[in-house]
């Protein structure tokens, strides 16, 4: 078992149902806030779901403990997915998300430590990985077993700071560090391969001294299997290249550039709910 405190591990079916529920809530709060990063929150939903429900040893009860696992969201703009998951984990009452992005709310458009459960303020891209290298070094210095995770966008990879951090993580043999790349292949302006190509990504990370696994990042089982085999190689940092679909779960949002920070109309929202409810009903019919 990865999460030592979790005696009631969810089944894959339960996790899949969670993803549907999370996606519905993400859209609900984006609609209410009239702002948000829709596509990237939906692509990352399954990753956050598996992390918080299956992998991370983090909970409201242990959040002050020096032994908790650490998660830093480098692609901070997808704060809606993070906030919905944190609320579900009990870090704060979900109703508070009714104030998302509103004047005087702590629930602003990027993660901030004013919100319980958030380790690090983020929003400027290219900051998460260096920070996690520091935290992973701290764990090693203290001989602690906690692990450090960061979620990055594929569009943010051209930031040089990431590659400086990648070098240092391998140099210090940080096998307590795991980077997840939400490779949805789109960013703001265009496809990532057109804006600034980073492929072949696996070879780059390998060349930088990391152990690499590629998964379908919208597949709960594949994600679980990958996370369960951390570290991929002793003495090396691990990176999961998670191939995802931007806007995952809502037909008209999938792979559409404009949903990077598109806000649904009431009608679009309703159609999305219909699609997600249909998915839920389908899942409920399946055996575990």
């Amino acid at each position, binding site marked *: 078992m990865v999460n030592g405190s979790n005696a009631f591990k969810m089944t894959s079916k339960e996790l899949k149902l969670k993803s549907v529920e999370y996606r519905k809530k993400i859209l609900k709060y984006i609609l209410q*806030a009239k*702002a948000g990063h829709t596509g990237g929150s939906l692509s990352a939903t399954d990753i956050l779901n598996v992390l918080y429900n299956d992998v991370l040893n983090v909970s409201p009860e242990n959040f002050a403990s020096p032994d908790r696992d650490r998660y830093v969201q480098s692609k*901070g*703009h997808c704060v809606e997915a993070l906030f919905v998951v944190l609320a579900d984990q009990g870090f704060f009452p979900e109703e508070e998300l009714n104030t998302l*992005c*509103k*004047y*005087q*709310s702590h629930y*602003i*458009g*990027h993660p*901030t430590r004013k919100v319980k459960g958030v380790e690090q*303020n*983020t*929003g*400027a*891209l*290219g900051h998460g990985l260096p920070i996690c290298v520091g935290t992973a070094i701290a764990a090693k210095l203290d001989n602690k077993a906690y692990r450090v995770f960061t979620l990055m966008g594929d*569009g*943010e*990879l*051209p*930031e*040089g700071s990431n590659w400086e951090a990648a070098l240092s993580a391998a140099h210090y043999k940080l096998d307590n560090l795991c980077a997840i790349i939400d490779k949805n292949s789109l*960013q*703001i*302006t265009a496809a990532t391969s057109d*804006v*600034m190509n980073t492929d072949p990504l696996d070879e780059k990370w390998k060349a930088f001294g990391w152990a690499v696994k590629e998964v379908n990042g919208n597949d709960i089982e594949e994600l679980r299997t990958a996370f369960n085999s951390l570290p991929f190689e002793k003495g090396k940092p691990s990176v999961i290249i998670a191939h995802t679909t931007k806007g995952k779960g809502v037909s008209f949002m999938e792979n559409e550039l404009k949903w990077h920070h598109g806000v649904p109309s009431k009608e679009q929202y309703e159609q999305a709910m219909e699609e997600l409810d249909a998915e839920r009903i389908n899942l409920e019919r399946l055996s575990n």
Partner: protein
Amino acid sequence: MPQLSDIVVQNEKETRGGFGEGIYEAGKRNPKVVALTADLAGSLKLGPFIKDFPERFVQVGIAEANMMGIAAGLTIGGYIPYTTTFANFSTGRVYDQIRQSIAYSHKNVKICASHAGLTLGEDGATHQILEDIGLMKMLPGMTVIVPCDFNQTKAATMAIADYEGPVYLRFGRPKWPNFTAEDGSDFVIGKAQLLAEGTDVSIFACGHLVWKAIEAARTLQAEGIAAEVINIHTIKPLDSEAIIASISKTGCAVTAEEHNVLGGLGDSVAQVAARNKPVPIEFVGTNDTFGESGKPADLLKKYGLDAPNIVAAAKKAIARK
């Protein structure tokens, strides 16, 4: 002499839209103008430029430091690069690249920064830089321009193509009253713009807060106080003569900016006053704080950058004479 009643709002437009039109015109007139962006072509309104001059558009991806280095290199090849991203990623994120590769060699790079200040809205503190004017004005040889509306941003964007040396051009996201000359004829780099004559207090403002200063002056006028409103769109080089002439007449001043009071326009004006004509000065700006999410109007109010704050500051300055 210009009066408050002369100021007429033509429409409400985003200053970044003025940048988009300005860089298109600059690109049309001058084949050496190149536009660079770090994945924010849409936010900076580069569409028309990219459409008509695709070969002079360089997309660097989300890699602002690289963008500054590439821009410095383009000048060695004789080009006039305009870098475009949000103000925080145009300055703080890449300060060493700007300092070492651009300012120190006095490279002809135009650093064009949108979404400056508090008024960008929902994104919150990571995207709301309130320190950039200070960062940039401290660099030797850097020109710092903060236009007040759409027309002026367009004029400034075109003017800097013909102006040798590194420039920081700061503008914003929200729709804002557009009232300066449509043809930009009232804009000259380094020359303060007298918007309304007055005898009781000088209000020096830049960027979005120029409009707030006009609103404040109208309120003061109704109460019998004659405020002089001066748009300091060029913070560096500063038009010291205009500042000295105004405070010599009025005997006190208010500065107003969408920026930290530490390091911004207020500091620059205060230094001119202290050296030449010490008078009481009040400072309207943010007070050493980060921002938060919200609508522009709410944020300006909360952080004390609204017209009533300028009115109160003016009365305080007058009382201290």
